[in-house]
């Protein structure tokens, strides 16, 4: 069991947990992820590490409630625990292995969407601690879904916040902010974008035009997270890669996003049904004829 030291709601349906996990905190680096199970019946849920403290032996994760297993996480409080917590998985961000002097020469832009703000944070923080201030764009549908603004402000160079509906700060998609910045005459040498696949796809389409090298962090369906099942396979350039062991970060200009987005849909119906069951009890048997149930 892995005890939860802090738990709070960051935004509607988005929760942050600080977890005691010495086996993970000892060797983890920005860009890596963990797999968490709420309880004995839970799925294995891959979550990018959002922060870590080697001395306190803690890992911070941010979760959005989207299915049955994450729904049960909602009720967890400080003092409760996760049944399983394993990592660090995947490869660290390439930034970690790049000489600091080289990074200092570069203008780096992070583009975060929604929940993606959380995994962007440790990378920006790591750079900040190494004397590199990167610019950060954070986008969300609406004001209530903007998370970690203060934390990000403390470590980012320029922070640009945008909402789709214009309810907070700038209005429009993250791609619009990139276009605006370039129109103002800004230029970057490296872009790192984390968020919904559809957002990363459009960021990549734009940065390709701008000839801005772009790294994406992929979040496909996974089971074991150690390379065993191949559920997370992606087409990157000409080859098939496993996000869990070859990634999760890849050259965004080489990722086949259309295929990756289709693959994310595989269990939508099954997951939806399990979620409704967790939320409302065993009332959904598919009998209504609307959800494609078979009874």
């Amino acid at each position, binding site marked *: 069991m892995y005890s939860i030291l802090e738990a709070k709601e960051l935004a509607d349906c988005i929760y942050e947990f600080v977890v005691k996990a010495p086996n993970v905190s000892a060797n983890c680096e920005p860009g890596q992820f963990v797999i968490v199970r709420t309880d004995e019946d839970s799925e294995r849920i891959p979550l990018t590490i959002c922060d870590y403290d080697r001395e306190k032996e803690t890992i911070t994760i941010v979760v959005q409630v989207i299915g*049955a297993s994450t729904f049960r996480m909602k009720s967890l409080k400080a003092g409760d625990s996760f049944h399983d917590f394993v990592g660090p998985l995947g490869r660290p961000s390439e930034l970690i292995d790049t000489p600091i002097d080289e990074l200092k020469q570069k203008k780096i832009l992070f583009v975060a969407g929604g929940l993606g703000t959380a995994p962007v944070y440790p990378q920006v923080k790591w750079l900040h601690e190494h004397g590199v201030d990167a610019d950060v764009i954070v986008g969300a549908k609406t004001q209530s879904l903007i998370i970690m603004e203060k934390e990000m402000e403390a470590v980012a160079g320029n922070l640009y916040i945008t909402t789709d509906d214009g309810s907070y700060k700038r209005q429009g998609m993250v791609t619009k902010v990139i276009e605006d910045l370039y129109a103002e005459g800004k230029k970057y040498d490296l872009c790192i974008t984390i968020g919904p696949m559809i957002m990363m796809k459009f960021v990549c389409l734009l940065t390709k035009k701008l000839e801005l090298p772009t790294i994406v962090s992929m979040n496909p369906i996974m089971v074991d997270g150690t390379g*065993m099942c191949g559920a997370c396979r992606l087409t990157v350039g000409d080859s098939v890669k496993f996000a869990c062991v070859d990634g999760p970060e890849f050259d965004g200009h080489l990722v086949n996003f259309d295929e990756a987005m289709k693959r994310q849909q595989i269990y939508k119906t*099954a997951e939806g049904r399990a979620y409704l069951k967790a939320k409302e009890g065993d009332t959904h048997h598919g009998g209504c004829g609307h959800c494609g149930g078979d009874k």
Partner: protein
Amino acid sequence: MDVLKKVPVREQDSKVRATNFEEVCLGYNKEEAMEEASRCLNCKNAQCVKGCPVSISIPDFIKEVKEGNFKEAYDVISKSSSLPAVCGRVCPQESQCEGKCVRGIKGESVSIGKLERFVADWAFENGIKPTVNAEKKNKKVAVIGSGPSGLSCAGDLAKMGYDVTVFEALHELGGVLVYGIPEFRLPKEKVVKKEIENVKALGVKFETNTIIGKSFTIDELIEKYGFEAVFIGSGAGLPKFMGIPGENANGVFSANEYLTRSNLMKAFKESDTPIMIGKKVVVVGGGNVAMDAARTALRLGSEVHIVYRRSEEELPARVEEVHHAKEEGIIFNLLTNPVEILSDENGWVSGIKCIKMELGEPDESGRRSPVEIKGSEFEIECDAVIMSLGTSPNPLISSTTKGLEINRRKCIVINEESGETSKSGVFAGGDAVTGAATVILAMGAGRKAAQGIDEYLSSKGN
């Protein structure tokens, strides 16, 4: 009683079992076991023992069964095997102990596997556990992986008095015994958990959710945590795909994924983890894992076809498994090889394009290699494809351990006698060394390495 024939073992009816996940084989009862045991000739120069990778004193335990001394029979077996209830169920006895049985020359060999299973199950039911007599040695050994090789290595080392900790990457102990082999062949609660309890009873400690190579490296285990020797039994976990067009379509799974969802994550019953239940599923491959995936899909309600490029004779799966699969209604499309997976406009599998094969000249392995018949392409309509083409070792450990030699197939290189790797004090065995093989070969390797570790640590002194 016909002494030339085995006492038949009771099984669940094929029509009934095709719809449930209960164990297929029901095993012998006392009377049946004693009767079968009486068929053993108790050979002086027992060939069966030579066929057993862990060298169980087979005639000795069978003699005890024959006389109704089941506790004594268990003691004989547990001297050599840490997992008899598992081995009695999943060992390929026909090519090992039973394949060498003298009874088998004229009639049917003695049913050694079923007898072993009976003894192990009887011990469970009667609360009998293996015992440790050795003095504590106060030396720490780390075992990586709680699959068959790790468990057998850990069990043997504990029996010798070592302080053993097993590190497991997944949340559940047992390795392939829990994520790979389905419930209907190897019950998890009734058999696997109890076998692991027995290893725990020997004093072995277990840590789940710890990935060596990620959470810690082998060097850290030795330098930081004070382990004096390490055994790598991390298995062969990486699934292979064919590399044909369409393989990333929705509805194409590796057998590892499909089985892990069903077995480890319990998707076959109530669970948060979903599994796709296809209307018509094509399983590509002919090994035991392919049979397991096919029979799982069948039980979940799919029509299941096995597509295999050679003929029935070359099927690498155990004869018993093929026989069971056929009985249950799995359709075999032999001498057939996939060339492309077809999908609809939304990216879901809609069929599989195959080509007919014929057998040509024998290759290096002695098997006749399949050759495509030109122009014989045809399509099988289906909505799910399970690729069961074998696995290769996971590079998580080899890529993070300095001085660990691997070969071109990414398998760890060892000294065959001692099990020691190119790195001093680090031993390895099982699929991580051989590539995908069987439970019992992995157990044999685990035992051998336990010997090797004992010799290494004894010669090192204090």
